[in-house]
């Protein structure tokens, strides 16, 4: 609740202070419903007109034992009257439903931040499970924070006392009590939440009633309790007009794929195998059969992408989604797709590696793997969305390029984009790019590898077309007949042609646009989900007078034309990445620019402050 342009006014009984932005984190046991609390509060924030950024954080276990650190689930929200670029570096308000949640999250809370806890949950058993030798609520160890201990469990139980519910059922309503309290605290309209409760529990009126009551009790508690002296309000942000919805990266990616294939007039065929954090794409697309979407849960990743490639051969747009080890397993088939020059979109929702690694955490460590992770020379197009909503646009772009150039296209998302969400201006289908797929039908002069002079794409000639019968395969082909050829010069020509085709995609890549001065002390180059943190840091640094600009790459292969010139206009080039320095290698090799890596590999995103600090160190006395 920093930088608040405060000014208390009074609505209802308690005064209201106005703030620019608030970062709040809800944390509790996996069973405590913190994801629901968080997303409901998010929705009430956007309805109130704030710009927002969110970050859920799930435990790796399905159901870790209650009360343990392993079972803590969190949800962070940054809501603001200005443009929001990240979910916030550090929460200013922490809601901790039990000792484990407190222990796992306290170090992130800003000094002096508000700490709402459920008193009853700090019993001996839970304290022990969390490894607290003494009760932190009473041992003075929380003196650096604004402690707001609330009898959440007891008050919820009281509010629902006369309902015929088990103890367990009652306690599951704690989260709506908490939500009510927080909604009061931030002066939020209650109606939308109540409406949601009604919808959510439409099939179980008893639970509907219970959760309504819990919510109202929490809200009333804020109003009446001595603990809370005032409320806060974050005014609406200046947001471009339009109709918005809150969307996660995985959802946006699904919709992008569907919208693009509808525009192209193609069936969308997803061949996939479940894996965290990509599985939700499979789940969501599985429900869209009406949109000519077929999902195929294959026996493994190899079969998933194999089926997708078969579908592309047969005239659909084949897509395969995966993460972590799934990427390794798909490489052989991607090589075949490169060789047979069929369209294919592969979505890699990156997670912590190597090996099984940190399956539920985010990372950007697959860039070199998707670029080079296949034997032989097998170039592909690589795109990376920079925010949850951008997953929509880049999914559309992936489909468009795959069809236009008859090539596999990699879409590099990550766990942070996949599960994070942001408001998304709902696009109108007609405004999407025009991208009809064209199948070859004319047998006259047909050769499987006869190329379009503009794109070097070969014709898409699908089974069922009379007169175009032909065979594709992984052995080197003669140009243009497609017959098997072991001839040395033909091989050289084909290898170079495939490379040139991918290089040609640069004609479809927008020129690099920097945010900030055209030349200056430092250019920060990023890709993927680091967008928000880098942009916010750039603005903060600029505000402090640094001549710093930000360039975010959404096309990683081929790189935009003219990129080298841009890089050379700055004294220093810094490349923050959630890996050991992968993009920076490409830039250095390609442009011989002494770009410097800034790497963080902790399974969690950069903080704005970290990037600011790194730039300051880099520039040093350079001011």
């Amino acid at each position: 609740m920093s930088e608040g342009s405060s000014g208390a006014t009074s609505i209802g009984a308690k005064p209201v202070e106005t703030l620019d932005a608030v970062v709040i984190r809800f944390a509790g046991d996996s069973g405590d419903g913190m994801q629901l609390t968080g997303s409901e509060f998010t929705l009430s924030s956007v309805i109130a007109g704030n710009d927002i950024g969110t970050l859920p954080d799930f435990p790796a276990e399905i159901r870790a034992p209650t009360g343990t650190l392993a079972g803590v689930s969190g949800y962070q929200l940054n809501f603001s009257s200005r443009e929001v670029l990240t979910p916030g570096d550090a929460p200013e308000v922490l809601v901790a439903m039990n000792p484990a949640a407190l222990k796992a999250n306290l170090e992130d809370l800003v000094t002096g931040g508000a700490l709402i806890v459920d008193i009853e949950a700090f019993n001996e058993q839970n304290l022990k499970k969390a490894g607290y030798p003494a009760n932190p609520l009473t041992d003075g160890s929380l003196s650096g924070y604004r402690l707001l201990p609330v009898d959440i469990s007891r008050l919820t139980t009281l509010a629902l006392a006369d309902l015929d519910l088990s103890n367990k059922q009652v306690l599951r309503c704690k989260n709506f009590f908490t939500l009510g309290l927080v909604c009061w605290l931030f002066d939020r309209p209650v109606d939308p939440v109540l409406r949601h409760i009604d919808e959510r529990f439409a099939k179980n009126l008893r639970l509907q009633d219970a959760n309504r009551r819990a919510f109202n009790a929490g809200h009333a508690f804020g109003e009446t309790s001595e603990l809370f002296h005032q409320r806060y309000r974050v005014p609406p942000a200046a947001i471009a007009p339009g109709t918005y919805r809150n969307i996660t990266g995985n959802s946006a990616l699904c919709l992008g794929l569907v919208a693009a294939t509808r525009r192209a007039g193609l069936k969308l065929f997803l061949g996939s195998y479940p894996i965290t954090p990509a599985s939700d794409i499979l789940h969501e697309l599985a429900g869209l059969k009406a949109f000519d979407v077929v999902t195929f849960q294959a026996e493994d990743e190899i079969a998933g992408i194999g089926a997708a490639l078969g579908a592309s051969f047969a005239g659909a747009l084949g897509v395969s989604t995966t993460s972590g080890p799934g990427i390794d397993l798909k490489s052989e088939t991607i090589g075949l797709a490169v060789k047979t020059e069929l369209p294919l979109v592969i979505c890699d929702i990156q997670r912590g590696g190597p090996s099984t690694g940190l399956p539920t955490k985010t990372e950007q460590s697959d860039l070199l793997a998707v670029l080079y992770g296949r034997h032989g020379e097998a170039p592909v197009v690589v795109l990376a969305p920079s925010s949850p909503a951008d997953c929509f646009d880049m999914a559309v772009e992936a489909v468009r390029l795959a069809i236009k150039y008859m090539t596999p296209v990699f879409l590099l998302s990550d766990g942070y984009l996949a599960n994070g969400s942001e408001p998304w201006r709902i696009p109108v289908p007609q405004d999407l790019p025009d991208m009809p797929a064209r199948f070859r039908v004319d047998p006259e002069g047909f050769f499987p590898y006869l190329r379009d002079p503009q794109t070097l794409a070969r014709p898409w000639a699908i089974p069922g077309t009379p007169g175009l019968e032909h065979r594709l395969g992984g052995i080197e082909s003669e140009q243009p007949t497609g017959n098997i050829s072991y001839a040395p010069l033909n091989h050289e020509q084909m290898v170079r042609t495939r490379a040139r085709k991918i290089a040609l995609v640069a004609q479809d890549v927008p020129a690099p646009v920097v945010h900030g001065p055209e030349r200056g002390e430092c250019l920060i180059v990023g890709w993927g989900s680091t967008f928000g943190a880098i942009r916010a840091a750039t603005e903060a640094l600029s505000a402090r007078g640094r001549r710093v600009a930000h360039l975010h790459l959404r096309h990683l292969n081929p790189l935009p034309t003219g990129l080298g010139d841009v890089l050379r206009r700055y004294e220093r080039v810094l490349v923050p990445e959630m890996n050991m320095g992968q993009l920076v290698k490409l830039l250095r090799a390609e442009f011989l620019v002494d770009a410097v890596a800034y790497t963080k590999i902790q399974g969690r995103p950069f903080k704005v402050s970290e990037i600011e600090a790194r730039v300051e160190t880099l520039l040093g006395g350079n001011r």
Partner: protein
Amino acid sequence: MATVETSAAPRLTRRDFESDQEVRWCPGCGDYAILAQVQRVLPDLGVPREKFVFVSGIGCSSRFPYYVDTYGFHTLHGRAPAIASGIKLTRPDLSVWIVTGDGDALSIGGNHLIHILRRNLDVNILLFNNQIYGLTKGQYSPTSEPGKVTKSTPDGSIDNPFKPLVLALGAEATFLARTIDVEARHLQDVVRRAHAHHGASFVEVLQNCNIFNDGAFDSLTDREIKADNQLILEAGQPMIFGRERSKGIRMNGMRPEVVNLEGAPAAELLVHDPSNPVLAYLLAQMGPPNFPTPLGVLFEVTRPVYEDGLARQVSAAQARSDADLAALLGAGESWTVG
């Protein structure tokens, strides 16, 4: 695989299915005979030429699609069933054929094979079993007999082999057949029946690799002795074999045995019933040294076909929804600014 469409076009001939590519198997390879028989059968199936797709993996056998003038995809070692699945699910109107070898299908490709069988996609799988790796020049395969001396097993192999039909049955296959490269008529007939089956058809074609495993099936092809070693299956017929048709198969408790027809009444013999899975297991297991090798259709049952189920779900979804893209994009909670 059942006929997917009948064609009003001019009758096709064998030549229509010969591609312009030079056939590059070793002279004398059993693959030639199989190719010839398949090319003879294809024109009769009532499927327009452009609706055939031959999908293969890697191996000598997997070169097959290059020689058939239809659509074809020579894919990756072991992956043909996966790629064919994507083709068939996208385009159920196509007649999809998978050509594979014992290494391709049963070694590296074992998993895809068993999964396409359990899902029962309407495809035809022709496994050319030469009990050796041909293309990589003679290593033992998962169907090589124990003790086999090859380049990679100089002291003899110590693996127990798969029986392809037993494995396929274990994977819930709905059509199982076996034939031999040199038995032209029988091969044609089996291929026709595989095509006629609606669901995944699994055909083991015993194939001689005259370079690296010559004579592997001599006992089944040598004119002198083959009748004693082949058990030709016909639905509803008792299981009789032998040069003088003097031997039969009957049950002794839950175990089969060979009996001399002179000593045993014909009524005791097993009668072939392709719909009986227990019998199918018994036959798929059967073979030398104590039994003849069953040839023909061992098993055929009807079970829901994967892509039919998919089509039903798609229709139902389309009936439920008007697939309005704008509505999809705007679904869920939304709010308007300005």
